[in-house]
């Protein structure tokens, strides 16, 4: 079958279960396409040889009761994978091979999936364009020299370019939803505490959350069902009753109340985005839902709050990369000199910028004015959502204030880069689930996404709304395979 890589996850699972395809057929197809797609630069590390072995092994004794039977899958290189190099997109971990597996990936392999390789990302997930990776920028399959978004840029490009049927990313301020929006794919950031953080290289611990990235909502629901488990190894993991997201998926959203927050109509937002949003409002109405104008008054403080909280946590989380125990070490005259050289050479500019911001906002004399105040504002932002959810079941917004931009366009303007996350960041600060689905194209033909924000642990509801809209929109991603010669 030549069109294996065009199939959705759900189709592939069905075909393997019905024995129309073997795991080896599928694995081979994705490996072949991956090998022809080096120009996209999505892989940091490939594990193709052992993937083929695993596929053969699976086919010898296929367990077809699993949720991801023999499905090959590449994952973001922020997830620690046993015996497979894990870099977090950084020089400082360039030689790091974990002896352990993250809980999220463990869950995936337990359901029968097979690791294809590790996907490129912004260094330590700090970036919105995948340009901060030590391993070079990633091309967006939509168009040459277009960023795929970030930080899960490699993941987004790999799904959009059909190099993996599905993948996982991590989302600290929009790192799943923004690249999904830039590549015409579906990305879910689950509620904080839904997926274990154990074994994921930490960026900002109170915001980080793993989530699925897929070609469609149903695939996304299936993977969420697999990765979301309570884990006693993560103290912030929450033990709640998890749905069978794919089985319970329905497009019946009749009577649901959807909030439209006026504060998301930001200055300078392109008319195309506003039009897309209006289209989205019409779609949910067409599906029988009711839209209600709401206010999230502290929205404009979300970005500054995020850029205090996230760097503060990062400055401390990244202290362990000091050249002493593992990873890159530069030679130094003494301990301090070794630290300075290791960290100056091992970390890229954006990571260093954030470590400095974080160190500054936590230092004595500034802590109260920055970190403590930011925590207070964070509480207000969460309260905004709590208030809104007294009136509505979910909230609909654009995913990003623009479509994908050109590589290099914003690298010298960090603030304009940070503004990319303006619609996604509040969701992380409030710990809520949010999903981005492709909803249309701009005048350049680049995809645009809509975001649905849910109540805490109400992933099923936003998946259902996304599923209903998806059916109405009937979005087709324009992939020309321009990179395949």
């Amino acid at each position, binding site marked *: 079958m030549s069109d294996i890589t065009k199939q959705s996850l759900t189709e592939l699972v069905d075909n393997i279960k019905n024995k129309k395809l073997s795991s080896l057929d599928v694995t081979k197809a994705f490996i072949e396409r991956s090998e022809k797609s080096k120009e996209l630069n999505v892989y940091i590390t490939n594990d193709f040889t052992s993937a083929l072995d695993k596929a053969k092994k699976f086919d010898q004794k296929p367990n077809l009761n699993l949720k991801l039977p023999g499905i090959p899958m590449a994952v973001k290189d922020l997830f620690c994978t046993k015996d497979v190099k894990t870099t977090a997109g950084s020089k400082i*971990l360039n030689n790091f091979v974990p002896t352990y597996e993250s809980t999220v990936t463990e869950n995936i392999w337990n359901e029968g999936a097979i690791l294809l390789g590790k996907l490129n990302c912004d260094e330590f997930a700090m970036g919105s364009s995948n340009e901060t990776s030590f391993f070079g920028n990633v091309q967006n399959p939509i168009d040459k020299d277009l960023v795929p978004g970030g930080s899960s840029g490699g993941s987004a490009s790999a799904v959009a370019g059909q190099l993996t049927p599905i993948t996982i990313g991590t989302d600290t301020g929009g790192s799943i939803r923004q690249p999904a929006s830039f590549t015409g794919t579906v990305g879910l950031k689950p509620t904080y505490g839904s997926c274990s953080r*154990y074994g994921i290289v930490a960026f900002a611990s109170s915001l980080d959350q793993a989530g699925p990235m897929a070609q469609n909502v149903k695939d996304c629901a299936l993977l969420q069902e697999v990765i979301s488990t309570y884990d006693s*190894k993560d103290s912030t993991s929450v033990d709640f009753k998890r749905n069978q997201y794919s089985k319970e998926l329905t497009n019946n959203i009749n009577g649901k109340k959807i909030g439209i927050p006026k504060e998301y109509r930001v200055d300078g937002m392109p008319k195309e985005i506003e039009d897309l949003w209006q289209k989205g409002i019409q779609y949910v109405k067409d599906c029988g839902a009711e839209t209600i104008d709401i206010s999230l008054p502290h929205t404009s403080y979300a970005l500054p709050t995020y850029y205090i909280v996230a760097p503060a946590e990062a400055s401390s989380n990244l202290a362990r990369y000091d050249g002493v125990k593992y990873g890159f070490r530069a030679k130094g005259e003494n301990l301090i000199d070794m630290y300075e050289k290791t960290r100056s050479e091992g970390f890229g500019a954006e990571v260093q910028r954030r470590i400095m911001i974080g160190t500054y906002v*936590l230092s004595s004399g500034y802590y109260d004015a920055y970190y403590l105040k930011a925590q207070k504002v964070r509480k207000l932002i969460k309260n905004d959502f709590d208030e809104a959810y007294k009136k509505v079941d979910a909230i609909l917004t654009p995913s990003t204030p623009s479509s994908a931009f050109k590589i290099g366009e914003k690298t010298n303007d960090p603030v304009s880069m940070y503004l990319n996350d303006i619609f996604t960041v509040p969701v992380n600060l409030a710990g809520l689930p949010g999903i981005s689905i492709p909803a249309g194209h701009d005048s350049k033909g680049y995809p645009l996404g809509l975001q649905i924000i849910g109540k805490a642990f109400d992933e099923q509801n936003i998946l259902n709304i996304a599923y209903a809209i998806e059916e109405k929109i009937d979005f087709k991603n324009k992939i020309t395979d321009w990179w395949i010669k």
Partner: protein
Amino acid sequence: MDQVSKNSSEYLINRKDNQYEVVIGLEVHAQVLSESKLFSASATKFGAEPNTQVSLVDAAFPGMLPVINEFCVKQAIKTGIGLNAKINKRSVFDRKNYFYADLPQGYQISQFKDPIVGEGKVILDMPNGQKEIGIERLHLEQDAGKSIHDLDPQNTFVDLNRSGVALMEIVSKPDLRSPDEVSAYIKKLRSIMRYLGTCDGNMQEGSLRADVNVSVRAKGSKEFGTRCEIKNVNSIKFMQMAIEFEANRQVDLIEEGKSIDQETRLFDTKRNETRSMRSKEDAHDYRYFPDPDLLPLEVSDEFINELKNKIPELPDDKKKRFIDEFKLSPYEATILVSDIDTAKYFEEVVAKMGKKKDMKLAVNWITGELFSVLNNKNLEISQSPVSAKNLAILVNLIKNGTISGKIAKTVFELMLNGDKDPQIIVEEKGLKQQSDPKAIEALIDKIINDNREKAIEYKQGKEKLFGFFVGQAMKASGGKANPQLINEILKKKLQ
């Protein structure tokens, strides 16, 4: 009215016309007695091969997360109860950020603003009465690893076995006023924690160490002076020496009209002096903030009450009971309760002796003969060569007149070898006391007969000679004659 200090042991530093009082506060680091570490399942055994008790969490591998050890939380709460302190139902773990080779995370997880235990107090028994020392707080934190600088001329080696081990930092109020009070305070803390089983108090192994804050002020002044913190002192003797040196150093500065810099100092045990480590300006900025990997620690009233119900009798209560029940002096009781193993030994002796009323003799034997043997052999009471059971039998043999106190000492010497039953020793060696009046009378008659001149001298008023006759009688009986009977009969015969 003249203000005269009744406190004869008041510790003051005198210079010309001025007297200075020393103000001391302690931050004691006590290792929690626990099989595993504060946030990981690694073992905590002392003296293990380097880097054999290290988990991925302890070595701070990417993506590793701390998970609180409930047992350590219970130990901290129990200690808080033992310190008569407020237990905080909600406490928060913070990160204390600094770089060092033996600190793998680049931060220490500690409790900064919201500790698990709040204010409490301990009572010290000082020679001139009791003194209350306030406890400011107790919090849980991780220990760091160990840097070893002397194995290689170029490199430093790091042993992470200790990395992540649970510590309780117990902060006192600045209520201590002398090296002796510091000694009593440390001993009392150690005693309470050993009773509770929350810290073994082993200072040689570093299970108990302290940062000592010292300041001085003119006697009678209410204001505190500028303090210096002496870091990481690991014996009571060194604490006392460090305080003595530091207080005098500060007084000298004041007398010279100089000011004292707030700073962190090190105690050099070889030179017996403190030296500046870093000044206030160079103080680390630890950038404390709540650890986002851990939720606030919340404990319920039921959880605390369950622990309260399991608290054993602590030294202060035991002392009171010993005084009431056994009519011991406060001094004797204090000695017996200060160490849990001594108290246990004593109570075993009591149980074996069967009679609870007059334990004075038993106490004398424990604090006298036994302690001196333990001292000489450098043993703990838990390693005593004489078991509580056999000591109880020995004391009973004295009390029921089977042997004299003098013979008992001989028997005790023999017991040291293999913890032999004193009854058997008495039998085998024929040491039983002679208490037959007729036999003693016969013996005395013979002695008087053999020493007629002396007997006459005695009767003429040379009373000192009485002792001579007692000695002769004892000697004749091989030391076994009941001394009381000898006295009585001799007196009668020599009248």
